[in-house]
């Protein structure tokens, strides 16, 4: 079976500098893959390249076995859900924001209403449905952003540090809810984070990105048991073997 996403020899450049290079990375159906690394490691550049919002200088990205260069970007993106660090909601009601991706796909009104209600409910924000998205707290806004992405029922969900701007109690609650929802839906997810704890809680696989290079990938247990090099070991916070 083809992986949902497969990346080969990818190079992404930003401002004439190599931002990220990946020899090989694949995400299988149902995987929650966390790409972790310190700030400036190139994680967001990789995610934007996967979403075709940054054009790679070289390399291949295959989605469900098809090379992306051979399909339209809009058609491809309509299989994705994207949540960025900031919620980036538009000036409309919460329900309209959640329905936005569905409207872009010109889905029928009944289905839009049904799915909007469902995901407002699942993220515990049904009571906010008529409220303006401009009048939400940070945690509420990020819940709306997540509900908006899940309502699409994406084949691949891309999350770019969605908890980084939240305070600790809000982050813990949302992380628990997201963990539960990912387990219930089996949504294939690529999750960017610099927080090892967050990544370990959500992901069944992790990939470590350091200085723009993907250094090691595997299950959290594999990574902690066999870090390949010293810098990976240091990043994971594992002390030197005696």
């Amino acid at each position, binding site marked *: 079976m083809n992986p949902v996403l497969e990346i080969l020899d990818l190079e992404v450049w930003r401002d004439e500098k190599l931002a990220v290079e990946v020899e090989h990375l694949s995400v299988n159906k149902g995987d929650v893959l966390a790409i972790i690394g310190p700030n400036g490691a190139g994680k967001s550049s990789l995610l*934007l390249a996967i*979403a075709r*919002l940054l054009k790679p200088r070289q390399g291949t990205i295959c989605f469900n076995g098809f090379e992306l260069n051979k399909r339209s*970007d*809009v058609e491809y*993106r*309509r299989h*994705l*859900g*994207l949540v*960025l660090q*900031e919620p*980036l909601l*538009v*000036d409309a009601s919460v329900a309209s924001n959640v329905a*936005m*991706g569905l409207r*872009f*796909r010109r889905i029928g009104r009944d289905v839009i209403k049904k799915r909007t209600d469902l995901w407002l409910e699942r993220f515990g924000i049904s009571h906010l449905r008529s409220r*303006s998205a*401009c*009048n939400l707290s940070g945690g509420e806004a990020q819940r709306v952003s997540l509900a*908006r*992405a899940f309502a*699409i029922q994406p084949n691949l969900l*891309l999350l770019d540090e969605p908890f980084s701007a939240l305070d600790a109690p809000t982050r813990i609650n949302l992380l628990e809810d997201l963990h539960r929802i990912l387990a219930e839906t089996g949504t294939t997810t690529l999750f960017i984070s610099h927080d090892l704890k967050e990544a370990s809680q959500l992901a069944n696989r992790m990939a470590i990105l350091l200085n723009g290079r993907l250094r090691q990938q595997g299950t959290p247990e594999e990574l902690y048991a066999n870090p390949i090099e010293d810098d990976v070991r240091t990043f994971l916070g594992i002390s030197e073997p005696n």
Partner: protein
Amino acid sequence: MDLIQTIFSDPEVWQITILSLKLSGLGTLISLFIGLPLGTLLGLGKFPGRSFLLSIMNTGMGLPPVVVGLAVALMLWRSGPLGSLHLIYTPTAIVIAQTIISAPVVTGLTAAALQQLNPRLRMQLLGLGANTTQMVAWMWWEARLSLLAALMAGFGSVISEVGASMMVGGNIRYQTRVLTTAIVLETGKGQFDLAIALGVWLVLLTFIVNLALTWIQQKGARS
């Protein structure tokens, strides 16, 4: 007070007022159709020469109407390249000149309005599956207050100009005489009272139009 009564009871003043609103409204509308897409391209697009084009638009925002009038008059003059169209001293010539004055204002302010939005909003919309039209529509929605301000500035720049209308319209009674050219004429004749009354009427009219646009703008403001 008598003078104001005279103005309102004079059918010629009403004809001039309606013509002024019609020509300036049409010029603004055409500049909106040019300025909105062009400003969007300049505000959101990335292509070689974009900064150069933006600086041309920004320069165009301060284009002296009399220079525009001169350029349009040269083009439309009987011996000019477009002389065969017989447009000089017609209302159409005024609309052309006013569009040239207003379009850079609408374009430049549209570009600035869209550049002020969070650049990641565009990525977010595309990432949710929006096509270019859907993305632009939402960006316009998010920038709607500034876009309405652009529209008001565009209208303001043409309803108040006199140089271009005078040069390409010729201030012909019942044909191309607008409020600003009428004020110039009355001043020239030494009819200062009438000129002042027409000036007050012009300011009041501009205020009423902008009041309506501001009302629409503020109704759409974020709560």
